[in-house]
């Protein structure tokens, strides 16, 4: 898949991270076996809260290309394949082992369908649901509402965990999270140095969403240590940044781009580079720090104003060591496309190359592969370092 030094890299820690990334449910099974309650998250929910409540948290994702007959019966085609797949998975009992499934407002449509599914008797295998409706516009007008949303989430997690979330437990969890993010930032440095492929980086970061924070920190530290021992490769791959309309919860797009001969060095997504975003706050309590980070540090299509939504992109995409930007906007997109012309215009004015992929990386794989190969081949050759 990848080329150069990346091919030669062997790391037991990476292998374990990859295994955990690919088998995201393993941690759930282990936690259940230990009698530990399990909560699933759809969207960006503060993991530190779950940890402080003694819960095992897993990020829930949609099965790719699975048939969705029951979802298709009720859900319109305008809703994304991800939404159909998630409804089908919940309907089929894929998440029945969860003690609670928390959905964010990015999944409001799915929430409505699941609520109705419960009402009309389809919910035999549904886990209990909770909507964490944290509005992502950074305006004082929504602050009180958002605080109430966080309080309600805390109440639910405490109830499931059977214990209250103390300041000390939350402070510990936040500290561990900060340490993990520090490791992720070190990983980002190694990506830019070219010693780890985009696929591997995505897997290493994403594994943190289905692992206990302590275990994850341990594995990630070992992996980053391995990377930092590697010499800088002499490879000359084109370096890409990905901006996607869909959550990058699988490495499919990265694999396709890297098989075309490029390296993905960053992505504007919490499954990748944005997981390491540092949010600095002078909040006096751990809960307040967590609230500020969840609200004002949020990442995603719902963030307002657009300047906040695009700040990371504007900085990273124009970096000298990024050769080109890939905009992945599959047919299901109803939102990102409004931002695309402005983002592309900024790149054009800076002389930065970009590619718009409108096909679905799985459903239109042949065409997308050809498009990626042609584009990567057209990029100016990077001088070997």
């Amino acid at each position: 898949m990848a080329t150069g030094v990346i091919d030669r890299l062997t790391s037991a820690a990476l292998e374990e991270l990859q295994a955990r990334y690919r088998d995201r449910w393993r941690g759930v099974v282990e936690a259940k076996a230990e009698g530990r309650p399990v909560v699933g998250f759809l969207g960006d929910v503060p993991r530190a809260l779950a940890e402080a409540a003694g819960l095992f948290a897993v990020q829930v994702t949609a099965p790719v290309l699975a048939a969705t007959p029951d979802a298709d019966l009720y859900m319109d085609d305008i809703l994304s394949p991800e939404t159909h797949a998630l409804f089908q998975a919940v309907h089929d009992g894929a998440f029945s082992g969860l003690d609670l499934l928390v959905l964010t407002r990015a999944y409001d449509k799915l929430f409505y369908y699941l609520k109705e599914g419960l009402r009309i008797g389809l919910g035999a295998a549904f886990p209990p649901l909770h909507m964490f409706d944290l509005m992502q516009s950074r305006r004082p007008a929504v602050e009180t509402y958002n605080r109430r949303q966080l309080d309600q989430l805390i109440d639910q997690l405490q109830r499931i965990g059977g214990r209250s979330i103390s300041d000390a437990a939350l402070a510990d969890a936040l500290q561990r999270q900060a340490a993990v993010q520090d490791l992720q930032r070190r990983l980002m440095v190694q990506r830019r140095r070219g010693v780890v492929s985009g696929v591997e980086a995505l897997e290493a970061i994403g594994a943190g969403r289905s692992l206990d924070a302590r275990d994850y920190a341990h594995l990630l530290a070992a992996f980053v240590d391995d990377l930092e021992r590697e010499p800088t490769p002499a490879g000359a791959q084109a370096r890409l940044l990905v901006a996607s309309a869909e959550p990058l919860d699988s490495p499919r797009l990265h694999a396709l781009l890297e098989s075309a001969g490029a390296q993905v060095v960053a992505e504007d997504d919490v499954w990748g580079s944005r997981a390491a975003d540092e949010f600095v706050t002078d909040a006096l309590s751990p809960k307040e720090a967590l609230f500020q980070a969840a609200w004002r540090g949020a990442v995603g299509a719902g963030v307002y104003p657009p300047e906040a939504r695009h700040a990371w992109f504007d900085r990273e995409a124009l970096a000298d060591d990024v050769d080109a930007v890939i905009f992945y906007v599959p047919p299901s997109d109803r939102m990102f496309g409004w931002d695309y012309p402005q983002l592309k215009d900024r790149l054009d004015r800076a002389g930065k190359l970009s590619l718009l992929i409108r096909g679905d990386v799985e459903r239109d794989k042949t065409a997308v592969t050809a498009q990626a190969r042609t584009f990567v081949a057209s990029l100016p050759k990077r001088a070997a370092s």
Partner: protein
Amino acid sequence: MSGPDDARGQTSREQHAARTQLAVSHSLRTYQKDWFAKLRAEVFDQGRPFCIGGALVPHEIWEALDLPFITDVWYSGLVAARRQSAHYSKMLGERGFHDGLSRYSALTLAVLLDEDHPDKPWGGLPNPSLVCTNVADRAGRLIADHTGAAYVPLEMPVLQRPHPEWWRMSRWRWEDLDGAERIDVMLEQFKDLVAASEKVAGKRLDIDRLRELVDRVNRQEAYFDEVRDIIATSPNLPARLGEVMSQVMGIQWHRGTDWALDQARLFRDEIRHRADHQMWCCPNEQFRLMYVGQGLWQNLDFFTEFEERYGAVFVRSNYLSIASDGYLRLGGRDPLRALASRYTTMSEQMHIPGLGGAWALHEAQRHRVDGGLSIEGWWGNRMINVALEEADIPVLNFAADAVDATNWDDAKMRATVAEFIEQRVAPAKAKREAARV
């Protein structure tokens, strides 16, 4: 500039004029043209600030501040009615906005972006001073960016405790229906809108005037409620749906004004007169159909031909029914809070699973509907269709864009509707009547 498209547009306008049955349709059009010409003159010539708002925005605030405004979907509808949606949709595509993005409100943006077009609907739009839309409606922010206007976004809270029969609570029990927390967060955002609007208007909002306006809107919606009742209970349809929809939305976009209240009363009077005097749209009425979801604004006359051929009439759309079930908020002392309640779930209640289906079925039964026509483009339609089909009301999933005529195939669409009436609506009605015997 003239050409084949203009000739077709002219023919279409002539046909539309010939089919117009309601006197209020003429007075509405005259008023709107005069109003818009006056607005343009005041903004262009006198530099008066004006606002652009989304459909889910409390325009009453602007009305109370004497700020002229237009609604983006109204202007998009105007573009569609002039058969210019294909041009502007293509133009958006050329600017990089892919065709999967909704054009429902974005045609207003397109007209503003297309600065050199010589034939804009009603002369085109002046640049606004303030834009307010739902935060997810990105075209609104783009309009503000393009014109240098201030922008106020609105975010609707997720509905966590749905009441399937919401329309029974919305008029008086709205605090229970919408929930205090959700109303509060809308209220806080409306305060931001008030502050931004006061800045543009150069004066403070008079809350007593706003209260009067909200009361007037409630009276206007009550007239619409009567219109719905007449249409639902009359033996046959007294007014064509295209005219009813245009009338309702034409008035809604001016709600709170004396003109809107008067026009709503005249509308009610004319519908009542037609029903009392058995002035039916289609004397040979056989089948009663309803719109599910959006209306076909790009071709409102399309369904009229099915009157002659099959005795099929369209009796019901969301637009009239939501006017009373969604807009009315009675019994409150704080007009801003009443407005906040209205917009916590406005529009979404028509298609949230469970809520949309229950309402559509209730409406279908009330209007004695034989079949439904579901225009694609809204999430939630399929579940509404399931609810109707389970009650033996067949539904046609109509693959057409509400405002964008780019891919419209007239012959194919006619054949599709004809087949639906013959193969599904007629047998279902016969079965229902046989069961009654």
